[in-house]
């Protein structure tokens, strides 16, 4: 049976590792969304200024 001493702290340690990875993945996802929006916007901007000329 698993040792009960310090079990909660072991759990915190594992959780910390996974929380950090999750935060990073969330951060990547946010940036992905922001970049896609921006790319779309800038593409439209280039098309517009191309038309004007």
């Amino acid at each position, binding site marked *: 049976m*698993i*040792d*009960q*001493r*310090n*079990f909660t*702290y*072991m759990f*915190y*340690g*594992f959780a*910390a*590792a996974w929380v*950090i*990875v999750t935060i*990073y*993945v969330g951060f*990547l996802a946010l*940036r*992905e969304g922001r*970049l*896609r929006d*921006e*790319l779309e916007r*800038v*593409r439209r*901007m*280039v098309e517009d*200024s*191309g038309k*004007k*000329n």
Partner: protein
Amino acid sequence: MRNKLVFVLCLLAAGILCWQLYNVLLNLPNEKDQGAIYRIVYFHVPAIFTGFIGFFIALGASGMYLGTRNLKYDAFAAAVTEVSLTFATIVLATGMIWGRIIWGIWWTWDARLTTMLVCWLIYAGYLMLRRAIDEPTQRARLSAVVSIFGCTDIMIVWKSIEWWRTQHPAPVLSVRDGGGMAPGMESPIYWNWLALMCLAAVLVIIRMRQENMSREIDSLRRMAHSY
């Protein structure tokens, strides 16, 4: 093709991690002094390996960029550094939690801890520098130089504190000193390392794609202004 690779690597990482989590929690014997907390080592050590390998790969990629001036290498270096920094953060966090129980303190100015912290600070600076430069070619050039300076520094720190006070457990793996952990207790470290490398590869691929996208945004913006 690339998506398929990401998917496979994800699956592989998840599979190994679940299997090893089960293994670590339920199959491994208890350690006589430390209690359950020693199991943190199965994340701590693989994260160290992954992080440090990443920083050295970033050094290589930065050198390759300066040699070839191909922005592909710059995107790679940036992605690897950022992902490695995430793993360095994991190392520090898990290490501090372990230290709180075993040493009774969150932090100590020990050789290995200090190296990791210096490493963290240097590469955080690297990422901040990247954000402060708009022009992609200039950014690539300058951050490659910073990466080379930073990696050199870590090697100097590492060498210089080998003679310094050390409180950190000596490396426990058998490859280093032919002893330490029992063979059955050691293998999860390697398995988890493999899993974390797969995870890191996935993150690097995604991050690199973003780097390329932001470069494209930059060039489109310049194009819009030039008309």
